[in-house]
């Protein structure tokens, strides 16, 4: 095939468009200067400053805990919902129920935030960590359902469950011994996705975070009021790196799940 220079240039431009901002941010996180404009030499000190910033670390801990709770809730509910949607004998309105589970993906988060806020306040709930975790779980649930549902639908599971029951397993043990291990990569992958979604959530958290709860995105936003510091760059690079690790893990899990599906 003839090589096209124009196409190569276009691709280079596209990737530059996507990644140049991230690269600039990464480079300046190592800049030995308080302002971003001039390069003054290489340093790790912003990473140390970041790590020593107690408020920032508290926000990070809050976000990690929040994401872990939301991911766990979403994965558990997602598994149950997917199982019902895929494995249950067809029931009236099954497609409708499935669509309703996916819908939160499309609903503007501002609307969701306002709705959650007015509901929680009206119902008399404290705007505490628990409330925020539930709200995050709600936002994450469609991701978990999508991952697990696709897996359950594709793995020929009902026949495998029948085979297990034929060999002496009760319904519950067939689920534990066959369906659950087969769905596990998808459950973990859905949970990782849910974790990421919760971790980076800003809008709903901004609406719902009561006094004393500061998630990392909210903290970073408030720090930005004083300009983009190298410390924020350093933090962003740290987050970026962990995201790539999670993405890699997810890809590995999906590949493994694909190899299993015979």
């Amino acid at each position, binding site marked *: 095939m003839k090589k096209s220079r124009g196409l190569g240039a276009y691709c280079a431009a596209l990737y530059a468009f996507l990644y140049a901002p991230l690269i600039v941010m990464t480079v300046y996180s190592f800049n030995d200067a308080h302002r971003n404009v001039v390069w003054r030499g290489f340093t790790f000190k912003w990473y140390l400053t970041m790590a020593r910033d107690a408020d920032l670390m508290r926000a990070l801990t809050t976000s990690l805990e929040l994401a872990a709770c939301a991911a766990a809730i979403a994965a558990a509910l997602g598994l149950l919902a997917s199982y019902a949607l895929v494995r249950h004998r067809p029931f009236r309105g099954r497609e409708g129920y499935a669509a309703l589970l996916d819908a939160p993906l499309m609903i503007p988060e501002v609307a969701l935030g306002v709705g959650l806020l007015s509901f929680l306040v009206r119902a008399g709930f404290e705007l505490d960590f628990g409330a925020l975790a539930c709200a995050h779980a709600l936002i994450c649930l469609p991701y978990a359902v999508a991952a697990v549902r696709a897996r359950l639908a594709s793995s020929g599971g009902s*026949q495998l469950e*029948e085979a297990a029951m*034929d*060999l*002496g397993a*009760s319904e519950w043990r067939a689920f534990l011994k*066959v369906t659950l291990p087969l769905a596990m990569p998808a459950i973990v992958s859905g949970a990782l996705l849910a974790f990421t979604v919760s971790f980076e959530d800003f809008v709903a958290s901004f609406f719902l975070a009561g006094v004393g709860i500061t998630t990392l995105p909210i903290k970073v936003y408030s720090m930005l009021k004083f300009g983009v510091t190298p410390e924020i760059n350093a933090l962003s690079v740290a987050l970026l790196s962990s995201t790539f690790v999670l993405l890699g893990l997810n890809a590995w899990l999906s590949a493994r799940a694909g190899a*299993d*599906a015979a």
Partner: protein
Amino acid sequence: MGAVTAETLLEVGPLTKSFGAATILRDVSLDVRKGEFMTLLGPSGCGKTTTLRIIAGFETPDSGRVILGGRDVTDLPPYERDVHTVFQHYALFPHLDVAGNAAFGLRLRRVPEAEVSRRVTEALALVKLSGFESRRVSSLSGGQMQRVALARAIVGRPSLLLLDEPLGALDLKLRKEMQLELKNLQRRLGIAFVYVTHDQEEAMTMSDRIAVFHQGRLEQLGTPGEIYEAPRTSFVADFIGGANIFSAEVLPGPAGQARLRLEGEHEIVVPLDPHEVLPPPGGRVKVAIRPERVKVFYKDELPFGALRFDATLRDSIFLGDGCQIYLEFLAGAPDKRLVAMAGGDRYAVHDDLGVPVIAAVQPEDVYILERDGD
């Protein structure tokens, strides 16, 4: 339900099953003896797989019982029945290796690990998969997967093994090999098999008895010889071996014999088996004649065979080991052909199409089938 002897392992019936408005089974009753190879044979949608699933416990019949080893298991779930199934699409567990699949049932029953490993080794050797223990099932060929499914089902030593078109996904050559192997395995293990297939040749090759299904009914239950030599219905005659089927009017005749008039023309007299009951004179029955039992003679030859029909040679197809010959012998129904099979290539020449011939049949080769309703 037939005579129940000490040798009876499984009795089912009379089973009825509907899914919504569709009736899948109508009054199906059958019995399986210990160590017997029983085949449920029929075209797709005839109810054979539903019968198998009722025996396995995956479906509950609307009426009728399943008695296994003298115990009523109709309402027991699959995991409380001493029955294992080899599924059509294998249904191997992809997250377990070959040995893990074979050991699944034993581990559920908490058999000690030492015995699990001994019995898995033994079962894999029986299906010729020794050395495959730690292979992933996704790396196996179709034939190998089928063997794993078989090992997984026999390792628990059930009294009855159910097989749902287990060879359906294999190519023809492999299927022939597996047929013989399965039959040998069944003999060696002494386990009763209930085997579902739509392939009549496969059923003939392997079975001790065959249950022929059609539209949710059990048409006939018998040994391969009985089914072939004495079909009771036109469906059985046609589905197994193929047959010329005609409508005939019953004429008054002597006891023990049937005087019939074929499609308003030829009159024939054939012997009547003791179990056969004819409708009164004036009624109609269907009769069948196997193509290979029809002899064709040219006019200048001396025909043998007691029933002779003047016929016209209309077509002949050379099949290598013989010829399939199409004859016209009913002046009133020129489209109704009589098909004959003849060895050799004697009728392969097409010069003599349209010439008059004589078709001859022995009276005992005319099978009397069900009453003809119209």
